[in-house]
């Protein structure tokens, strides 16, 4: 009794640029975030394609030829893989954001995630149909 309480709270700073190395779950989060760069890069490539198309047939055919280069094929494979990863990670968490309650019960998460995959498949098929693949 009588002794004065002294307070000196100690603050531990979070390392600004390396915090995500601390736990595997933070690395998974960063992987999800970083893979969106490839979706952005592919969108830019599509825009370049549209621009070349507007410049005339010769330019567009040169663009198509460039797409067949090994560097381009590697980029496309990487972009496809990372885009699928990014999309799947987001689809898998949709039940958290969009719960559907019917009566008392909530729809199982798998139904909501599955609906997203189904929509993805239907849209992809529609695009392939329009592109004359079938």
């Amino acid at each position, binding site marked *: 009794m009588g002794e004065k309480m*002294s307070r000196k709270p*100690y603050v*531990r700073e979070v390392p600004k640029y390396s915090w995500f190395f601390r736990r595997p*779950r933070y690395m998974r989060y960063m992987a999800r*975030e970083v893979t969106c760069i490839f979706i952005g890069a592919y969108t830019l490539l599509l825009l370049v394609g549209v621009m070349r198309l507007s410049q005339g047939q010769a330019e567009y055919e040169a663009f198509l030829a460039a797409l067949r280069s090994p560097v381009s094929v590697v980029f496309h494979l990487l972009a496809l893989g990372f885009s699928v990863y990014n999309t799947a990670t987001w689809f898998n968490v949709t*039940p*958290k954001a969009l719960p559907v309650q019917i009566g008392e019960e909530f729809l199982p998460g798998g139904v909501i995630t599955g609906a997203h995959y189904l929509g993805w498949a239907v849209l992809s098929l529609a695009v392939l149909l329009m592109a004359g693949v079938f």
Partner: protein
Amino acid sequence: MSERVYQLEVLRYHPETDSEPHFQRYSVSCEEEWVVLDALNRIKETIDPTLSYRWSCHMAVCGSCGMMINGEPMLACKSFLRDYQGVIRVEPLAHFPIERDLVTVIDDFMDKFKRVKPYLIPKHEKPVSEGEYLQSPAQLKKFKQYTMCINCMLCYAACPEYGLIPKFLGPAAISMAHRYNQDSRDGGRDERQEEIATTEGVWECSFVGACSEVCPEHVDPASALQQVKIKSTVDWYKEHLMPWVKK
């Protein structure tokens, strides 16, 4: 029941004498069925009475004994010694200032919790003589999981956004706001939106999802925050594109 010796490395900090925290190793004999909190109690009773930490119920209800155990936010009363190999490293909850040893300063959370008005604000006040505010099982189920929060703050210790941007309102406070917003008897959403539908509110969340992974009561705060984002976005569109539609 058999006893064996466990090694615990505990982060110590005495504000009167220390300039920064340091680890102290304890070898303590514990029964194999014990949890980390039991080991801390045995240390305090038999080895070092100066060790400070918070605890109360010893049954994952009070939410007092949250700490970092091998780097993971855990309730010490729910972390069984048998689940750990080698030295068990015990630290105070991350992202909170250390008051002393394993005791953190939680004023920031308490202030944020108050700001979201975590109580029922009835749509229509009525005298007791008119009876109860009725609610169907379906209406209750809509928010029930969010009522399970025990304010243990493990979600704040797991959330990197809160660690980097301490102004962030954080998972538990926003989840509790969502819990009342989802309650059919409540009419206080507009008041809570002032706090949660802001940059320092829900929009600071980038959906790492760590809060839900560490939650000992399976509240799933990440789900509450994403739902608040969607509802706040709908509010914005209604306000700007369909001003004639009443919220």
